[in-house]
């Protein structure tokens, strides 16, 4: 499988719908005018072009559908994301990719699968979640632990609660702190994401974890995962780096001697644990 060249022409795409999820985060549903050049694997990323703004790496929040649509969950933060948030339905953007390796979904087969999402990290894991739900009988159990800063910024909450109600997913939610106006939120733990792992015991070798969240999340989650019995080989971390080209050329995203853009962005904990600055 070959990712497209870094200077390839983006596939034109139209913004079909924009769903505002929180004050600064929206779900953009795009309709691609051409097929992606290779099959998308959850955890891979695409490069989104916003005309006259530039290009940014985004990990899709769902599985690209047969009809050529794809969802991107984007927080307004920098130049390009601000321009994206100013677009309207029907506007044109561009897509290149997919890039990177994605989560090793085959290796999750038969295991107790734990997805750990912090904040916007729910977006790439939602894509993995959809994949695993589609192949639910392949895995032994499926648990999503999702932490947000506060109830108001918890993304996809109703959708996740609906999925949990079908019985195919065990869902554990937590917020860092409760704000005064949100005291009546439904059952939800208060505390950082790793607190959800307290007391959890999994079968070593038969469990795996996929983690995606803000950079500090990884450091505080690994110890709890190891303690819970997930072995180093089975902890998959989706790392964030500044990926400009996507093909290991521009040299911004090296993790040790690996490139996050093409050797990652998903790494096994065992492979990067000794690399200074990796986590």
């Amino acid at each position, binding site marked *: 499988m070959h990712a497209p060249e870094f200077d390839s022409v983006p596939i034109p795409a139209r913004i079909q719908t924009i769903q505002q999820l929180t004050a600064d985060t929206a779900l953009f549903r795009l309709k691609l005018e051409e097929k992606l050049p290779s099959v998308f694997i959850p955890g891979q990323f695409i490069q989104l072009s916003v005309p006259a703004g530039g290009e*940014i790496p985004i990990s899709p929040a769902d599985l690209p559908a047969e009809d050529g649509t794809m969802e991107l969950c984007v927080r307004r933060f920098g130049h390009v994301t601000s321009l994206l948030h100013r677009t309207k339905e029907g506007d044109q953007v561009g897509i290149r990719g997919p890039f990177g390796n994605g989560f090793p979904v085959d290796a999750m087969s038969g295991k107790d699968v734990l997805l750990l999402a912090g904040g916007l990290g729910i977006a790439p894991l939602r894509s993995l979640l959809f994949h695993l739900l589609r192949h639910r009988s392949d895995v032994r159990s499926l648990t999503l632990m999702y932490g947000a800063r506060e109830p108001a910024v918890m993304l996809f909450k109703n959708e996740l609660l609906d999925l949990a109600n079908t019985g195919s997913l065990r869902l554990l939610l937590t917020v860092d702190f409760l704000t005064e106006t949100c005291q009546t939120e439904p059952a939800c733990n208060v505390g950082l994401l790793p607190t959800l792992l307290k007391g959890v015991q999994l079968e070593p070798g038969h469990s795996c974890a996929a983690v995606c969240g803000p950079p500090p999340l990884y450091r505080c989650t690994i110890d709890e995962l190891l303690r819970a019995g997930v072995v180093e080989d089975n902890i998959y971390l989706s790392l964030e780096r500044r990926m400009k080209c996507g093909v290991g050329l521009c040299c911004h995203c090296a993790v040790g001697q690996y490139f996050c853009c093409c050797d990652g962005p998903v790494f096994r904990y065992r492979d990067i644990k000794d690399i200074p600055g990796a986590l």
Partner: protein
Amino acid sequence: MVRHFLPDNSLGQFLDGLSLFGALHGPVRTTEGVEVFGPVRTESDLLLNYRRTLIPPKKYLLPPRQTILNYTVAAGYTLPDEPEPHIILFGVHPCDLQGIAYLDRVFLGDRPDRLYRRRREAITLVGLSCEPDEFCFCTSDENIPRNADLFLQHVEHGFLVSAVTSKGEEMLDGLGKLLASSRITPQTSAEHRMMTRIREVARSGKTFPDSPLWERFAARCLSCGACSVCCPTCYCFDVLENGALDGTTADRFREWDNCLFRAHGEVAGGTNFRPDRRERFHYRYLHKYLGFGTLAGVPACVGCGRCRVVCPVDIDLTELFTEDGDACS
């Protein structure tokens, strides 16, 4: 390889002959007194005994800023179609030829870079031997670098000319009348001790994590990035888009970036994976001496000495490899 003798007084005609194959560029002095690679108008422009240019010849293959895509509302994103003029780059020293050989491995490897390849194919390299000074340590363990099309070696009263590639042979075909056969055997030189040491370090993957030199470097580094700008093998680039104010047209371009700059490791949201200079030096060290990705284990330093010359605060990463540095590791 056959070597021909080119007498000094035939060099002008030789250059005229070369310029039939493309625009002649070589080491010249600007009006500001800087030694650079630039267009050569007459033989007298050429600096035949220059030490090193400020910027290496990588600028011909990876321009400081290069358009990669154009955008208009009507056409969307499109590839620019600018023909590359053919250039004869004369007077490239062995270290810079090694630098180009390294860039070729990066940009013409298993994922050839379209823009690089177009420029690379449009350039003919004419190498020239040099006299090392106290700043450089040439990698050339063979006298004639294999990626030069032609190579000239300084000898008494002229040059020994060798055609290294078929392109070089083709150029020499028309210049035979200027050349005499030669029995002179040029001197060969042993590899510089420093380069041997660098190769050893690259093979062993040493990172010198405990060396106090990192702190000493970081304490005085100005983050000016000059070491990287002038390095023949530094190729980090940023991808940026310059949109018109009304958003209806744009150019996307790649531009030289610099691992010594603070923004190099920064991601959206403000997290910086290399927030301090020590970490940025480590990153530079890893890339330059140990290599990333498919070039892991291949040192990128060609010993040209530019970074040692230009650093305003005398930082020299090769101090890590001297006995003192080793003792610290």
